[in-house]
């Protein structure tokens, strides 16, 4: 019995080692804690990677917190977190003050979306602004079938909403009648059921249940976001204080690895290659 067990163990060990000429191997001899804080859009990527790593080596503890880009910079700069995430490039003053190093790892694009039966498939930035500020309330004013526009948005603190307001909506005041849903999934469900709906989702979440809307002639798609043709995009960054070492460096390597790219795609973003 014992022999059998040992043999089995051996087989498992063999399988594990053969599967992994594995980026996770870098974590084999590491231990300790890594705290990550900052941008909310990063959270799904960070937690998925952290889970992989902590499952592989239980001696490692990785915590992931949100807080927003500002919090990310502050925490990493003051040494409270090993990695501070931002959804915007660092300001020169921040790099100088804290000695930060930045690692862009993904493109986050946001697409406007409507019900597939809606004839309106292209809007101008100006029209989008008017829809979300409540100046335009009927589809017939946009060349569609008459009917109230049901406007959907995301909750405060959502990375998707941040990209939408930063890159498309601008500084104005959102109309108070915007309905709020709290995930890309809930947004898709709402739009897919509602012929008069308009909303926005992370570009990776576009599928045939909802229809993407071109903005100023730029069609939202993963390819266009990656090539720069589609403008409602931003990069996601990890930032460290000085050159990363040990667990922090290994974590960043993992994000740039093959499985890391898979996680990024699964979270609805486009992976970026490491800048050299």
């Amino acid at each position: 019995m014992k022999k059998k067990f040992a043999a089995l163990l051996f087989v498992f060990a063999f399988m594990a080692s053969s599967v992994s000429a594995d980026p996770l191997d870098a974590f084999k001899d590491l231990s300790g804690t890594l705290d990550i804080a900052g941008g909310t859009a990063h959270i799904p990527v960070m937690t998925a990677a952290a889970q992989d790593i902590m499952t592989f080596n239980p001696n490692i503890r990785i915590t992931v917190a949100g807080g927003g880009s500002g919090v990310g910079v502050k925490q990493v700069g003051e040494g409270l977190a090993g990695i501070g995430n931002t959804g915007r490039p660092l300001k020169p003053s921040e790099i100088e003050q804290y000695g930060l190093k930045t690692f862009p790892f993904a493109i986050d694009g946001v697409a406007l979306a409507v019900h597939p039966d809606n004839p309106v498939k292209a809007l101008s930035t100006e029209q989008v602004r008017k829809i979300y500020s409540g100046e335009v309330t009927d589809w017939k004013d946009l060349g569609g079938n008459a009917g109230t526009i049901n406007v959907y948005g995301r909750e405060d603190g959502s990375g998707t909403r941040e990209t939408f307001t930063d890159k498309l909506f601008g500084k104005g005041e959102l109309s108070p009648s915007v309905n709020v849903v709290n995930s890309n999934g809930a947004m898709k469900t709402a739009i897919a059921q509602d012929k008069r709906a308009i909303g926005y989702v992370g570009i990776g979440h576009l599928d045939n249940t909802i229809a993407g809307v071109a903005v100023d002639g730029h069609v939202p798609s993963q390819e266009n976001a990656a090539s720069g043709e589609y403008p409602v995009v931003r990069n996601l960054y990890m930032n460290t204080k000085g050159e990363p070492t040990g667990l922090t460096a290994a974590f960043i390597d993992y994000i740039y690895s093959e499985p890391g790219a898979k996680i990024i795609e699964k979270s609805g973003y486009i992976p970026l290659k490491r800048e050299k």
Partner: protein
Amino acid sequence: MRNNKPVILRGCAVCVAAILGTVTAFILYSGIEALTQSSRLALFGSVWSPASGKFGILAMIQASILLALSALTLGWVLSLGLCCLMNGLAPKFIAKIIMLVINMMAAIPTVVYGFAAVFLLVPVIRDALGGTGFCWLTAGMLLALQGVPAMTIIMNGAMSQISRESKLTSQSLGFTNVQHLTHVVMPLSGKAMISAAIIGLGRAVGDALLPTMLAGNAIRFAHSPVDSMRTLTAHISLVLSSDIGGGEHLSLLLAGALLLTFCAIVSLAARHLIRGKNS
């Protein structure tokens, strides 16, 4: 003998009371601090407009109250009806089926109600009444439904016991089943009805999931049942992920303190009412 409870037990009781006390104190303190820190943020105002630095949660207070009261009324009446059915109005086997269904409903997680409603009820409301379907009416109906099992079980517990105890007397006086129910059982179960309403109200005010999923969450005053609304609880669950500090965060603290105060007042008032009934 009374004062001889084991030390451990007493210790536990003190610990639990202390923890609850601290939590309460902390929430209230944060709420008050939020208020004093932020006179210029107009937290109690009617305008929510982060861009201009206004974080009024009045619309959410209105939404919480409207939604909870409407859901409670609907759910309570429904529960009372079910209890009457089970205690005399309907044949025994129907009563059994009702109890079975109620027990089953109590075991279904809230998120399942919400999820089912998004696909089944929301489109119906949207097509029939207009709007988006994510509205006061939808959320109210589901909250009512979700509150029914607890309220029914409480009311039915009292009513069936009273019914058993007084049945023979009633019958010997020549009461029919219905008269027995309306003239003996119902007047005697007032206390249970109030308790059920209190528990129902607490749940309806405190539930965050159903309003978040179904009420639309637009920050404005609701004027009709098909209007979108955002309750205090939905507000907390939606804003929780945003930056620490700032007006949004303070509005959460105030919302929490308000919810706690509201529930405390309701519960104290109910105790008072029930005590009044006893004496």
